């Protein structure tokens, strides 16, 4: 298994609202040691968003050239997502022009992923408080929204991995659809397509107080991508490095071995670095890599243990 991180680890910085140029981000992440990268297309509200404006295809192609030069591969990407998981509850989505912009960003993210060889694009299942969070209605509405994109992804050669969601920690909603893996499996299985799978976020699962080994065994071969991060149950969605929170990492690694997961060990720990800048930020990025090597070692040991 290869170690990976999201570009979100270094796109943001604490001394400005501007995003770093993605080519620079790749260069820095490669210099730290990363060869596998999760392309974050989640900053659609920023003025300097990669997929905004008319030159987005040129920007994407240039990024591809930079990646090729650096020897970087993109196993996965993160599609734009609805903050809070509900369009109904989002003020932005009440404006039809924003909804159209968002949908276009999702479309572009799939196309960009296809051009860059992304194998899996991660999508957040949507929640529908207007339907009382009913499972059947939520599944139907998610299909109504995502089917066109899943199809587009297939045309682009990119699968769609639906992510287990975080419960609504601020209690703005009583529950989020697919915060429990049973709903997530039902959604994914409804496609009955090998190009639709699951992204497992270890931090979101921890906020659900899940026994992650049991959950991952239920997910099984549907698992296509990972969001590795840590947190403390009941606190914010901290996205800390492994062992800075309360996730039971040996259990997660053993379960990954058991289910034969073949993707990357992808860290989603951008909040560790997003307030920093300068050399301090770089130091934190380096720490994520060293932490990742430890977790990889843990995985390899679990692999050997299972093999012996």
């Amino acid at each position: 298994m290869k170690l990976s991180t999201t570009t979100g680890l270094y796109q943001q910085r604490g001394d400005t609202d501007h995003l770093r140029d993605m080519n620079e981000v790749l260069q820095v992440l490669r210099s730290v040691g990363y060869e596998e990268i999760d392309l974050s297309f989640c900053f659609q509200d920023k003025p300097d968003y990669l997929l905004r404006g008319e030159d987005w295809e040129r920007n994407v192609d240039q990024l591809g050239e930079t990646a090729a030069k650096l020897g970087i591969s993109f196993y996965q990407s993160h599609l734009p997502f609805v903050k809070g998981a509900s369009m109904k509850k989002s003020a932005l989505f009440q404006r039809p022009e924003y909804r159209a912009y968002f949908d276009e960003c999702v479309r572009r993210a799939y196309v960009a992923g296809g051009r860059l060889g992304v194998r899996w694009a991660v999508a957040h299942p949507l929640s529908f408080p207007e339907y009382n969070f009913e499972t059947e209605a939520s599944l139907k509405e998610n299909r109504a929204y995502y089917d066109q994109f899943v199809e587009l992804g297939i045309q682009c050669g990119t699968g769609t991995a639906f992510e287990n969601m975080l419960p609504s920690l601020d209690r703005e909603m009583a529950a989020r659809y697919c915060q429990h893996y049973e709903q997530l499996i039902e959604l994914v299985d409804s496609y009955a397509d090998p190009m639709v799978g699951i992204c497992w976020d270890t931090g979101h699962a921890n906020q659900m107080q899940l026994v992650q080994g049991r959950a991952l065994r239920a997910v099984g071969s549907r698992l296509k991508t990972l969001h590795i991060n840590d947190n403390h149950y009941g606190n914010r969605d901290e996205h800390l490095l492994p062992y800075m929170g309360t996730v039971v990492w040996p259990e997660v690694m053993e379960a990954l071995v058991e289910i034969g997961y073949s993707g990357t060990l992808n860290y989603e720990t951008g909040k560790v670095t997003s307030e920093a800048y300068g050399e301090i930020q770089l130091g934190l990025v380096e720490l994520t890599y060293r932490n990742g090597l430890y977790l990889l070692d843990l995985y390899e040991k679990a692999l050997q243990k299972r093999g012996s």
Partner: protein
Amino acid sequence: MKLSILTGILEVSGDHSGLRDLNEVLQVLHEIGYDTVDLGLTPVASPDYVLRGDGWEKRIEAIGNTAAKLGITIAQSHLPTPKNASFDLDPNGKKPGYQEYFDECLRRAYAASGMLGVPFGTVHPLTYLDAVSSSKELLERNRRYYDKFVEWGIRCRVGTAFENMRPDSPNWRFPARYGQNYRDLLELVDSFDDPMVGVCWDTGHANHAQCKQGEALRAIGGRLKNLHINDNHYGCRDEHLLPFMGTVDWPQFLSALAEIPYQGVLNYEVGNTARRAPRVLQVEVLKTAYQNGLLLLDMYEKARAGIGRPDGEGA
């Protein structure tokens, strides 16, 4: 100013039970680069607590010898404190004999600090749940509890630094902790009218209290004796993260620190970044903490030299 770190960051780990021997802790910190530490004397409930039982003085002497051999200065100590800064909220608080045991630990901690040449030990102002609405009564009751220890500290040549507290977030069981407002803290410290009583400033607690840290530090001025440098996000748990992992305004804090006559060390209290990690990973976190500290020191020095806003780009 020297960089320092609380020994507590290495005393517990995710792959070993019990407390790590403090001599070993000093050795590891030394190997990473630290030559100045804050001696954590807080884990009174642990069976391995360094001040528990007979022979504690010998153990402290051994720590002193280790520190001397390694060239480590013990620049401040953290004295025992009840959990949640309140005997009313400490799960052990009502157990028979606990108060006597705790008080003896505190007494020993002062004595140990004196043996090791520590200038100031940090204590937490106490909150009494039946008096939370009266700063005057809380001050009186803190004096009633701490006076004998402050006096004992003076005899041991150890000053007492009262720490700014964080609010009871995210639980909010009561409106405010005593000492979360720096004006209450100053009132308590000034009531002693003694240079051996001062302030320990915890940057994370202040962030939770939504305190303008520059303004607070300027008000504290020369009373500042110890620091607990850490970061967090307002309203969440007391995260004790590395600087720039949370929302503390570090340039503002460092500018103010550079303005006041602080003689102490830049002491990191960031145990939550490593306490659950296996030991091998703890070392990686500590290396990053050390580099982070050197960069923060550099920002501080630039602020002292008046080189503009001490932002990280120049660091």
